[in-house]
């Protein structure tokens, strides 16, 4: 019976384990140093805000693993011998009190689902007490320890985790200053209108957001505790906590080996890590999620795709892609070598009270061959953007803030290149808001008609009675 070992019990690793179990009888071991059981990383914020307990973030009850013969091992991996197909665990030590196991384990197939780790860009003072990112269970614990004593916090980096951290700290009555390098929130990812809408909403929630501000250094007191930060504009802001949320990078330190002096050398396409595994920003994999080492695969946040699909990025560190890679690798492991083929891109988030969904491609800057249609509600809290090709009007992507849309419908519309006019006329079909919510399709269509001089009419209405009978 082959032994599949998975390092990492996040969404990628666990999805792989579950699907391998569904399709085969092989022995499965999942190793994690972070927690005993799989939990939803995205829910850590709710634990901190007191909406849930940590127990509630576990998607499966604790008996699930034994029942499905998925062996869980709580340990940090020290190194891997790819020749011998063996993992060595870190011995327990003072830094990792919870890493109880020494020794080693052998595998037949190895899946690396190592996740990612918050970026630190070598700022002065970045290792002071009270400075941290938000990614792991341990980060939550340290946040719980640090923040009850503090009054003011600074968050550096305007991404999704930054807003979450702002909301979290704000919920505990901590005054938050949010440093954003760009001149509007998240505008490297979303177009200016959406960025303005969200920036406004963040301010509405009493977050002091400072645009065009970059961190210069973090200043500590005599006890090694942060007491202020300095921005590149020279402003000094007093704070007892600094949240670093300037993105994440693949967590591959386990596989790295010293590369010598790189100064003056051209940056290579990849370097060789432990045992000769090919690394760049992440673990390099081909379209089958195979690394350059036989029987070793990588999935999830730690992955860098050597040849990503058209329109997709080399690094796509989101929950959904992690899960899709997990589903895919399970096929390969259980005997049917399968290409990683994510469908129409989708993602979602929530900024304080405003929900966001995106389907397909909606880049921050409009590509030349693409047209765009944008509607915003007078409240300034709801909007929809639809991008479509200039050539044949086929929809290519959609952003929605404040209206829930049906994934299935948009997936179909984008993958079958439906025309914008068809989509707008049938927009109610994609509406996923609860019953009795105000519907905006007519208003959206009206704006399109006005802008383009067309005279489209709504083809269907969601209305409660049309659905019952």
């Amino acid at each position: 019976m082959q032994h599949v070992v998975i390092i990492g019990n996040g969404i990628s690793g666990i999805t792989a384990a579950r699907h391998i179990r569904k399709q085969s009888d092989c022995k499965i071991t999942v190793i994690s140093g972070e927690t005993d059981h799989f939990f939803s990383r995205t829910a850590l914020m709710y634990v901190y805000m007191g909406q849930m307990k940590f127990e509630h973030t576990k998607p499966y009850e604790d008996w699930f693993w034994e029942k499905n013969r998925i062996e869980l091992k709580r340990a940090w991996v020290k190194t891997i011998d790819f020749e011998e197909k063996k993992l060595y665990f870190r011995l327990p030590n003072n830094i990792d009190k919870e890493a109880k196991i020494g020794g080693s384990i052998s595998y037949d197939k190895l899946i690396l689902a190592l996740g990612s780790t918050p970026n630190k860009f070598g700022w002065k003072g970045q290792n002071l007490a009270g400075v941290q990112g938000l990614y792991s269970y341990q980060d939550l614990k340290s946040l719980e320890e640090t923040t009850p004593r503090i009054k003011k916090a600074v968050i550096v980096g305007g991404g999704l985790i930054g807003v979450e951290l702002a909301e979290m700290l704000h919920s505990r009555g901590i005054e938050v200053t949010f440093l954003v390098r760009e001149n509007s929130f998240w505008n490297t990812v979303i177009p200016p209108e959406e960025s303005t809408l969200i920036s406004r909403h963040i301010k509405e929630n009493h977050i002091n957001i400072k645009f065009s501000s970059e961190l210069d250094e973090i200043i500590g007191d005599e006890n090694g505790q942060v007491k202020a930060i300095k921005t590149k504009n020279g402003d000094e802001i007093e704070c007892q906590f600094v949240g670093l949320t300037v993105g994440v990078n693949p967590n591959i330190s386990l596989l790295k080996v010293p590369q010598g002096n790189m100064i003056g050398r051209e940056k290579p396409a990849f370097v060789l890590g432990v045992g000769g595994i090919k690394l760049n920003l992440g673990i390099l994999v081909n379209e089958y999620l195979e690394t350059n080492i036989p029987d070793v695969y990588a999935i999830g946040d730690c992955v860098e795709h050597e040849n990503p699909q058209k329109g997709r990025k080399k690094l796509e560190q989101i929950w959904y892609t992690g899960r899709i890679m997990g589903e895919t690798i399970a096929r390969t492991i259980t005997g049917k070598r399968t290409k990683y083929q994510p469908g129409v891109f989708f993602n979602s988030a929530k900024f304080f009270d405003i929900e966001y969904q995106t389907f397909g491609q909606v880049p921050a800057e409009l590509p030349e061959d693409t047209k765009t249609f944008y509607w915003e509600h007078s409240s300034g809290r709801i909007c929809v953007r639809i991008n479509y090709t200039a050539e044949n009007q086929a929809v290519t992507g959609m952003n929605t803030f404040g209206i829930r849309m049906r994934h299935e419908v948009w997936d179909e519309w984008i993958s079958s290149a439906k025309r914008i006019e068809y989509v707008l006329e049938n927009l109610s079909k994609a509406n996923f808001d609860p019953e009795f919510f105000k519907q905006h399709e007519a208003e959206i269509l009206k704006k399109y008609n006005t802008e383009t001089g067309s005279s489209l009419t709504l083809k269907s209405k969601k209305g409660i009675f049309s659905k019952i009978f």
Partner: protein
Amino acid sequence: MLQKLGLIIFIAAFGLFIGTLGMNNYTLTDEILEKNFKEEALFDAKIELASMVDQSYSNSYTFTNELSEGIKQLNKVYNAQQAWDKKIYEDTILSIVKSSANGYLVDNKGFMFFLTFGMAIFGALLFILPEAQKPAGIKNNGIYFNPAMTRKWLGICIGTFFISFYIALYFKPQYIANWTMLIDPVSKLINGGEASRWFMYGFLYTISVLVMGIRYIIKYRHSKYQIIRTLSIMFFQTCIAFILPEIMSNLNLPSADLKNMWPLDYSFFFNYRLDKLLTSGAFGIFLLVWGIALFVVGVPVMVYFFGKRWYCSWVCGCGGLAETLGDPFRQLSDKSLKAWKIERYLIHGVLAFAIIMTIGVLYTYFTGSYTLLGFIPTESLKSSYGFLIGSIFSGVVGTGFYPLMGNRVWCRFGCPLAAYLGIIQRFKSKFRITTNGGQCISCGNCSTHCEMGIDVRAYAQKGQDIVRSSCVGCGVCSAVCPRGVLNLENAETDSRIMIAPDVLLGNLMEK
């Protein structure tokens, strides 16, 4: 600031409310005994209670206790004599206590009503209303730091109060006689008479639904579904359950809560109720037909189109209290598979019990025989159902355990009507909670805040529709979902996704 003041006023008024229990002096007189005892028992009572008559008691507990002991002795004798018709029940004792009372509370009912109920409502609203100034949206911040909502000391105190209240209400109402007195002014206004314990309970119930309903509406004001649903609950409790029956009895008609139905209304087919309906002319017959049509026709048709939510979270009184007063405790329901197993045995067991009990009662009604099938004693079936299910389960446990096991303990584990509605919802209904493609992030908000203890996430994260007999369609899973994954929908019955897809939407890998 305003909120703190509101909380202080509420606590003070509530403290006074408890304090009123010991407020009166009591003097038992012969007139009172004559008024409350049937002739055949009056002689015995006068002897048994002789030592109490014309004595002045300043301690309400001593008085009530001595009186209860005396009557217990009387009942013992009657039991031994098998003189069932002479036996004295709680309502008589309650009435004696009420008549014997004198003092500040008796003389100032209106003012004391204002100080207790009036100020408690005022304080509560002062605490609740300022929430509307904060931005609308899901705000469950801090509930797990709150000792009332996490089975900590305050939750246990609240639970103990609820449980004691229900025990007193059902079994020892004489000890809370002063509370019925507080409500007398309201009762006089509505039906001209003094408040019975059930009137007092109904009033308290309705006030709780209304005040906490306002809280709920403010909390979920970004969702029109929640607003309309809560207004519906508040309407049905206030108008249909509380006021309308009073109007009916004012008009000398048999009174009934028109939205309540068998088997939740388990005494619907009891002989005294059938007799009353059958002898009350056309209106009585209407009530009988309405009551039967509700569960024979109303339930299957409405559940087919809308799911059981049309009743459980839009109309029902128990559901109404759970959704309003119980909302702060919804997260305490057990989500484990084990709890689900227990739930299925219990609730269907109660349904079976209710059906057998009712068959027995009707058998006795029509044949006059007290044993069904030669060995089932229908009378004890009836009384044990009333005691175990009607009082203990639905009242003492059902509401008393809100702060310990969540706000739907009765609806989830005990209600026979919920079981019946649930069977139809599970097998023949257009209702389901749909999962939005592959968008679930397994965060667990839905499961955490499901009052029925459904592990909603288990379905959502594998792309399966939630089709569960227990789901009351409150819509909170959909409201708290941060990614817009869940939606309550009605569509073709066979379009419900009952088996999870192999892989979720968004993965195009070869099969």
